[in-house]
């Protein structure tokens, strides 16, 4: 057991509102990298940015799945205490899935896509990435004037192939947040993604 | 020169001051107190608590006074206050067979264990205005034998053993809560009942009445109506056992309805259920009729009447929603009205143009 529980937002109502606006802007402008630097520290290996997303969106109505690298006691205790969310073991049952580049493809493949009448009954992935450099992608779709170039680290061909399938499912599908230690970006299901070098 | 209308804020403040004056009435007449409302306009308080979805006699009395006696406005005040309250959890289900009875009647049986208890009711009053009533102090009421067993079994439990009446449905799992999740259709009975208990008394009364007149006829008998006090218990997570947190007055109505059976269900009596805070007997009875009418799907009946149409009934039962949308027509709509004017003028010009062409 961890000795002391780290705190969350100091002024929850105001700080979570500020965090949410960043998250909303990120989702509304896919691929745009925006600073998210909350006023608290999260237990490693959880980034403070990831924690801010969880504390802003998760509660006892949203089962939360974590990959093995994040399933540290300190992280679980912290998220349980601050969000009240149930830690879910079964990926398809989760509303939010916290993962890292190594586990992102499998999480994406198994996360809920909603159904034709309720496409909103789907999951959101939060992927911790070291930084926003690496794979170059060209994005098109709602929220993007003409095209936007987006780069992110270490997700690999299988992940991007699955993201393409995810977009094909529209209006079903999952939405993805990428969280670097101090920045976030989002790719909703509505975004069309082209990898560099692809036709 | 035309000057655009200004001063919305001043107008609002002035309107609120006038409202305060009207509410107070003639200052030479003593001001009514919320305690008086709570003690003497009890049925108004009961209705506001039931449809406001909050058991708090004092707050309901405050709301009635603030609303100048407009009960839907009072219900709205209570709902708006309720939604800001923290939620500690759900009580364990109340046990109405343990009710401390003040009134209990059955129209289906002449007598039954516990007997018929008339209690406080308008039923057999002669509706003659009692001009002196307010001035004559009431004589103490004979309360009947002090040793009356005030808890008694539910009538429908007494006849249930024979198998003539369907078992009270007990769905497994937690009941839903439409104040936490938006209602989706088709809705199960738990959510239908919650919607009905919050629903407008007048609307349910009219719908219940329509079933009696053949629009979804269900041959009802008032199996039992009981009014009295039940205790409310709660199991705090950290204690792990149940503790009693208080008592509330409620009215429960169980209707017995004839049912000829269908492909999937044998002939038997079926049930309609009504419940309210306080003594909202008309509401509980209407609710029981509408509850039964809405059970068409599970009983494999043909849906023919408005009271059986769950989307229609549940979408329009809430008087806070209904009054909001009806009354919002008071808000300015002149932009859309201008759009309609423009369209209508154009259409009429074209019609006249055609007429002229035809005449030439």
């Amino acid at each position, binding site marked *: 057991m961890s000795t002391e529980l780290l705190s969350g937002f100091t002024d929850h*109502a*105001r700080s*979570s*509102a500020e965090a*949410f*606006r960043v*998250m*909303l802007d990120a*989702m*509304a*402008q896919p691929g745009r990298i925006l600073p998210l630097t909350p006023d608290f520290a999260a237990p490693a290996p959880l980034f403070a940015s990831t924690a801010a997303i969880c504390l802003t*969106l998760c*509660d006892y109505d*949203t089962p939360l799945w974590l990959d093995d690298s994040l399933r540290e006691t300190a992280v679980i205790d912290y998220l349980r205490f601050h969000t009240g969310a149930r830690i879910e073991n079964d990926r398809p049952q989760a509303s939010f899935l916290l993962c890292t580049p190594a586990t992102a493809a499998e999480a994406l493949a198994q996360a809920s896509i909603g159904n*034709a*009448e309720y*496409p*909103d009954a789907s999951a959101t992935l939060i992927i911790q990435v070291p930084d926003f450099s690496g794979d170059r992608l060209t994005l098109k*779709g*709602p*929220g993007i*004037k003409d095209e936007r170039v987006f780069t992110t680290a270490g997700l690999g061909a299988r992940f991007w192939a699955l993201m393409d399938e995810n977009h094909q499912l*529209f*209006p079903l599908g999952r939405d993805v947040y990428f969280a670097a230690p101090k920045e976030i970006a989002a790719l*909703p*299901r*509505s975004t069309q993604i082209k990898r560099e070098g692809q036709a | 020169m*035309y000057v*655009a*209308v*200004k001063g*919305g804020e001043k107008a*609002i403040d002035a309107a609120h001051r006038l409202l305060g004056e009207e509410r107070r009435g003639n200052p030479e007449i003593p001001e009514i107190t919320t305690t008086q409302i709570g003690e003497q306009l009890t049925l108004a308080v009961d209705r506001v608590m039931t449809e406001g979805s909050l058991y708090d006699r004092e707050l309901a009395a405050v709301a009635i006074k603030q609303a100048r006696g407009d009960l839907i406005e009072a219900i709205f005040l209570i709902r*708006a206050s*309720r939604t*800001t309250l923290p939620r500690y959890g759900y009580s364990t289900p109340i046990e109405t067979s343990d009710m401390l009875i003040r009134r209990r009647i059955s129209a289906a049986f002449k007598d039954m264990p516990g007997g018929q208890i008339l209690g406080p009711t308008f039923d057999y009053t002669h509706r003659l205005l009692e001009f002196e009533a307010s001035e004559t102090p009431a004589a103490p009421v004979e309360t009947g034998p002090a040793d009356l067993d005030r808890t008694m079994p539910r009538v429908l439990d007494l006849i249930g053993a024979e198998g003539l009446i369907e078992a009270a449905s007990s769905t497994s799992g937690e009941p839903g809560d439409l*104040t936490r*999740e*938006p*209602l*989706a*259709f088709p809705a199960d009975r738990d959510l239908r009942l919650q919607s009905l208990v919050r629903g407008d008394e007048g609307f349910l009364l009219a719908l219940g009445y329509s079933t009696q007149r053949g629009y979804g006829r269900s041959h009802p008998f008032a199996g039992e109506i009981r009014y009295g006090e039940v205790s409310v218990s709660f199991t705090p997570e950290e204690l792990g056992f149940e503790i009693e947190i208080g008592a509330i007055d409620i009215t429960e109505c169980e209707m017995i309805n004839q049912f000829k059976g269908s492909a999937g269900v044998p002939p038997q009596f079926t049930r309609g259920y009504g419940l309210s805070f306080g003594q909202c007997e008309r509401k509980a009875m209407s609710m029981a009729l509408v509850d039964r009418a809405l059970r068409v799907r599970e009983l494999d009946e043909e849906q023919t009447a408005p009271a059986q149409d769950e*989307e229609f009934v549940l*979408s329009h039962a809430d008087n*806070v929603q209904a*009054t*909001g*949308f009806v009354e919002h027509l008071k*808000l300015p*709509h*002149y*932009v*859309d009205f*201008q*759009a*309609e004017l*423009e*369209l209508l003028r*154009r*259409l009429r010009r074209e019609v006249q143009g055609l007429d002229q062409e035809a005449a030439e």
Partner: protein
Amino acid sequence: MTTGYNFAYLNEQTKRMIRRALLKAVAIPGYQVPFASREMPMPYGWGTGGVQVTASILTPQDTLKVIDQGADDTTNAVSIRKFFVRTAGVATTEETEKASIIQTRHRVPEAALREDQILVYQVPIPEPLRFLEPRETETRKMHALEEYGIMHVKLYEDIARHGHIATAYAYPAKVNGRYVFDPSPIPKFDNPKLDDCAALQLFGAGREKRIYAVPPYTKVRSLDFEDHPFSVQKWEEPCALCGSTTTYLDEIILDDKGKRMFVCSDTDHCRKSQEKAA
């Protein structure tokens, strides 16, 4: 600022629920996300959906503008603005350019909006198919199957009968080539402003418990037919105050002998134009 209530009135649990709905709405443009709308301290029909959306996105740094019928000083706009000043202590403005969030009923401001602005619409009936099919179970299926035939039939019947599509406001449009949606009761004059708009547009229907969105730079195509293309209202005279010929005008009756004048519905835009001309 009134204490005793949470920042922006709603409690945090409610905001989380609405925020989740907002993100889904943005991810699925034009799709109506159900949400557990709360009773607000103003009546249903007065903008409870818009108010809940604004309360959930508002930060202490925001500057809020509230309009009703295009005007900042209509009673309900005044009342909603006052509500947020009391419960959130935010700065307010009547100037479109200075606002970071604009809550509106029935109009889209005339000035083009920017990427750093959010427009929040108050919506009475979010379902564009509702007046053709009152049942939610049916309309939900139609959206799922992208089956919008009845809407086209209705519009075509208008043309057959009147020679025009007889819908002057709340004119249906298709978002991002997928969902037919109701842009709220704005005059169809405003529909083109929704298309490819730089600002995020959020729609809240409190009584009907639905939230939907149009992200920035998203296609919003008003429904029409090749031989009857979509068109907007025109006036034969300019605004009597600023002389504009490109804005939406309100008709003011001046006497009982048919005398009338036309003035801009967007009061801020009209004032700016008058100042520029002076």
